[in-house]
């Protein structure tokens, strides 16, 4: 089972090119995802998580975006070299995506059953009857009565809409599911339901998943591995246990300091100082150094390499503060 990676990203660099500026959204990102595993993408808004996800789907509009370099290897093939036609046979079929906001992810003028059946008709069967039957099954799997299939998105609550979105994403039992903050727009009680649902379906189909989130609680609940992303690069990567119990990067540490911990009596939160750097004008050296409490001279001059501090636990920091 070694080296059975569903997805490998090598040295991916994505830029937004506009009249006034060039924005580096993703910088030399590399990662590997084992089949059947769930990888969490953690980071602040604007760190490049969604851009990475959309690059995997090849959904970034060109222009203004440009994939400058790198490879995205899915099931052993570099999908950046594939034709759009080939990509259309992969999207929704082998790789599915759940979008951030269920309120806007469904087409408001099409009944939901049609929206589910659409993806089935595209990839699985040309038989309309069979496709609609499968769509109804999917509705029931996500615990929506099939009678409601004829209704339009505005007649559903946020949580139900997200379940419809999940039904669409999983209708063709994809190998890889990319979930872009699937629960951010939902109430806390609904969040748990949706997460459990995703987990169950994923388990029964052995689907691999990338879970994009800024919520470490969701990471703890749903992920096997975690990639912490800052300003378009992975700054720390490891198993969930590595990240939660022995995180090494100052940014990861900062993220954990922002979570209230009731077990400690002195529960003062320590926010990370400053804001995300302007991606069109990134700092030299380590991109985190202006906000890093441990920064030394070297951090502003050289960009640290990613190094392995224990088996599979990578950190992109000189770790001077630990010496």
């Amino acid at each position: 089972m070694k080296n059975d990676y569903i997805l490998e990203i090598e040295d991916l660099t994505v830029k937004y090119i506009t009249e006034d500026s060039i924005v580096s959204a993703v910088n030399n990102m590399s990662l590997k995802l084992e089949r059947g595993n769930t990888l969490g993408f953690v980071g602040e808004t604007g760190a490049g998580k969604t851009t990475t996800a959309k690059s995997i789907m090849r959904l970034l509009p060109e222009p203004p975006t440009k994939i400058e370099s790198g490879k995205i290897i899915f099931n052993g093939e570099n999908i950046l070299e594939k034709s759009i036609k080939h990509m259309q046979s992969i999207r929704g079929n082998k790789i599915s995506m759940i979008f951030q906001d269920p309120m806007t992810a469904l087409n408001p003028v099409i009944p939901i059953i049609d929206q589910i059946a659409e993806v089935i008709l595209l990839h699985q069967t040309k038989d309309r009857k069979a496709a609609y039957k499968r769509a109804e099954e999917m509705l029931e799997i996500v615990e929506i009565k099939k009678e409601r299939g004829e209704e339009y998105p505005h007649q559903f609550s946020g949580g139900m809409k997200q379940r419809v979105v999940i039904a669409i994403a999983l209708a063709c039992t994809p190998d890889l599911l990319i979930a872009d903050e699937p629960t951010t727009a939902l109430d806390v009680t609904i969040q748990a339901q949706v997460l459990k649902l995703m987990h169950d379906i994923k388990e029964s189909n052995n689907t691999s998943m990338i879970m994009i989130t800024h919520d470490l609680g969701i990471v703890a609940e749903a992920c096997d591995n975690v990639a912490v992303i800052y300003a378009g690069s992975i700054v720390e990567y490891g198993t969930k246990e590595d990240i939660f119990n022995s995180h090494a990067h100052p940014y990861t540490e900062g993220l954990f300091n922002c979570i209230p911990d009731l077990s400690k009596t002195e529960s003062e939160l320590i926010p990370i100082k400053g804001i995300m750097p302007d991606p069109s004008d990134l700092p030299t050296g380590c991109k985190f150094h202006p906000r890093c409490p441990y920064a030394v001279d070297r951090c502003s001059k050289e960009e640290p390499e990613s190094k392995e501090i224990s088996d599979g636990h990578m950190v992109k920091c000189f770790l001077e503060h630990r010496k």
Partner: protein
Amino acid sequence: MLKYIIRRIIMMIPVMLGVTFVVFTMLYITPGDPAQTILGENATEETIAELREEMGLDRPFIIQYFDYVWKIVTKGDFGRSYTNQQPVINALIDRFPNTIILAVSSAAIAVILGLILGVVSAVKQYSIFDNFSMTLALIGLSMPNFWQGLLLMLLFSLKLGWFPVSGFTTWKHLILPALTVGTSSCAIIARMTRSSMLEVVRQDYVDSARAKGQKEYIVIIKHALRNAMIPIITAVGLQFGAMLGGSVITESVFSIPGIGKLMVDSIKARDYPSVQAGVLLIALSFCVVNLLVDLLYAATDPRMKSNIEGKA
């Protein structure tokens, strides 16, 4: 849905009453005595007074107004033309089909061409096609239609001889006037479609359609355009009014015997009942079109539909 249609028709009534009131008031305040106008310069005081009584002109304004409306509603009687003493309704029936044919064919040109230009421009934003068609749209918007009509006539009728100069009997007579009337509406619809499409194509649901693996042209037509249509339908409705209006001038340019030409000729002849009837008829057609547009709107946008059904 039926209840909504009925409610909308009932809602049209006060608007139409308002329109008749405005038009009637304008006629009422028009200087000059209708009886005098009909009888001419040489009529005696007595004959004029007789005719005034016969026409009911000696009654109070409000009575005359209701009488006018009552006659229209019950008998289709719009009064008699001052110039030929014939009931105005006869002229209207003769000419109305021509105006409607012209407006409908202009609308067809404007909608089809406008949608195509707008959608392609939005999909290929900032391309040569986009720049070219939007420049063309802006020029179309800036060109007075009577001038455009004359230019088309000069080129295609007088110089090339492809189409007849005037009259309105065959389809060949229809092409140039319909182009003339349709151009500015086409430009407006194209601009509107482009901006509406640009708004829609960056919505998440368009990306989710792509994420399903749907082909790009189906994404554009089925997912983007259907949503973009909602504001466009409203614009098309308003443009139909503009096209009915535009036909007034264009009918004069191409000598088409329609309501517009009737009105222009009647104004010059101070034949006010004909002007009044023409305005009323076109306003009524416009109201009907707006009703149809609203129904179409409700059919396109399920949010509207359930809103309506919720209320009904």
